[in-house]
């Protein structure tokens, strides 16, 4: 399940601007393989000798700490000793659920952040990193940064990608800034598949925050995040393809990703995509995207939009506005 990681407001800052630079030749991306494999030789069924059912409880608890409920249940059903060891974590899941209901005020619960935090902390005490992250979020939103960071650190140490992502981001905002640690944790989370972390990591690499600007790495992570559904990453990926920054220049890929970002509500992408459609002669489609961009505050889109509108009949103009009114963004991972 996707964990909410960070309040949006932090994104308004300096990281969203994509610097324009001269085109260069990018190489292909390196493939990342992180799956580790055990040899599945049949293990001697033994009554003596090491046996995974007798894995020490603290180790098993650590292993299962970042599990969601379905995985926790699977582990609990494997054998009775695992079931017994994992009981506190199952209890943590119940507390997590209550916490979320208090936080959002649903399922018959009235919204109550105090009780939400209380539930999350109880879940955290039982070892669930999911609860730790949610507790951390509430602390952070209240301005209790140190408490939040402490919880994120615990979750991150236990391998929770959301915890690692949040920890990385809090280090970026720390006074004084801790860029090296930030990148380290964002990298962990990214490798663990956390989409938002991948985008944030790409930004750091792009800006040359810790190491020298590494466009290839940045582009690789933008692309990964884009493939994972992150809209801003789609926009930046498109630009990488357009300028050949970190990725081989490709008009086709650039157009594809710009359209995807536009369809998911990215206002600059809607502008760019609208312009591209205009240059291809697709007037109706162009004007709809440009109208959407204008509505989202892209004032630069207004001029071109009006140019097209003047060329259209009244019926077409109305139809375009209706399309814009009825438009809905496609789902994304934010």
């Amino acid at each position, binding site marked *: *399940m*996707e*964990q*909410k990681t960070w309040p949006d407001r932090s994104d308004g800052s300096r990281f969203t601007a994509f610097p324009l630079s001269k085109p260069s030749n990018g190489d292909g991306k*390196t493939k*990342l*393989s*992180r*799956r*580790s*494999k*055990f*040899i*599945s*030789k*049949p*293990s*001697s*069924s033994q009554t003596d*000798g*090491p*046996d*995974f*059912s007798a*894995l*020490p409880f603290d*180790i098993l608890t*650590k*292993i*299962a700490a*970042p*599990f969601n*409920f*379905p*995985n926790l*249940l*699977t*582990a*609990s*059903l*494997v*054998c*009775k000793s695992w*079931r017994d060891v994992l009981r506190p974590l*199952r209890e943590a*899941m*119940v507390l997590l*659920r209550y916490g*979320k*209901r208090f*936080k*959002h005020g*649903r*399922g018959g619960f009235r919204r109550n952040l105090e009780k939400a935090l209380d539930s999350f902390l109880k879940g955290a005490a039982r070892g669930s990193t999911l609860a730790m992250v949610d507790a951390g979020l509430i602390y952070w939103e209240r301005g209790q940064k140190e408490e939040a960071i402490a919880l994120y650190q615990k979750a991150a140490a236990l*391998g929770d990608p959301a915890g690692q992502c949040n920890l990385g981001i809090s280090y970026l905002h720390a006074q004084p800034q801790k860029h090296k640690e930030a990148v380290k944790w964002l*990298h962990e989370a990214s*490798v663990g598949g956390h989409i938002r972390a991948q985008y944030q990591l790409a930004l750091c690499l792009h800006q040359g925050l810790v*190491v020298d600007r*590494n466009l290839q*790495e940045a582009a690789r992570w933008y692309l990964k995040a884009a493939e994972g559904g992150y809209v801003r990453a789609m926009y930046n990926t498109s630009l990488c393809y357009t300028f050949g920054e970190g990725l081989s220049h490709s008009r086709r890929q650039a157009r594809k990703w710009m359209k995807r970002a536009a369809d998911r509500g990215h206002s600059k992408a809607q502008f760019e995509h609208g312009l591209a459609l205009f240059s291809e002669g697709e007037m109706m489609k162009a004007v709809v995207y440009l109208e959407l961009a204008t509505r989202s505050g892209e004032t630069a889109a207004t001029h071109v939009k009006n140019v097209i509108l003047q060329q259209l009949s009244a019926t077409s103009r109305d139809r375009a506005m209706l399309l814009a009114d009825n438009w809905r963004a496609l789902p994304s991972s934010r």
Partner: protein
Amino acid sequence: MSMAAVETKKITLRTADNHEFEVEEAIAMEFSTIKTFFDENPDASEDTIPLPNVTSKCLSAIIEYCKSHLAFRARETSSSIDEQVRTYDEEFVKARDNESLKELILAANYLNIKALLDMLNQAVADRIKNKSVEYVRRFFGLENDYTPEEEAAIRAENEWAFEGVDPDDD
């Protein structure tokens, strides 16, 4: 007679099956348990440290792991190094059977070698996540010791989780 080069200090470790291993100090310090012991007993460095919970086969693997990771760390961080580390870890795990892995986890825990333990734990976790119960049992060579009633009880107890009124993503 004086040595021109700096001698690397060696620590002697004795395993459960009575083999003695001489390891460089740098490697022994990766074992937090040993490091703490030396911090508290600075004069003890000449003594042989007994490790009654660790077999020689296990200790060799651990020494090999720590050596390799120390070498990786000595190099500049880069994504290609990261890639190499990941590949190394994968191969390390792949080369071992379940029994050895269990031993390694216990030894890494006992000796408190964080990086190794975290890596092994993650490997176990990856073999449980999004798999079926049967797969996990088979993979780890575990017997199903549930009676049908016990199994039904635990499923019933946790049915609420699948009643799906709550969205997953908040």
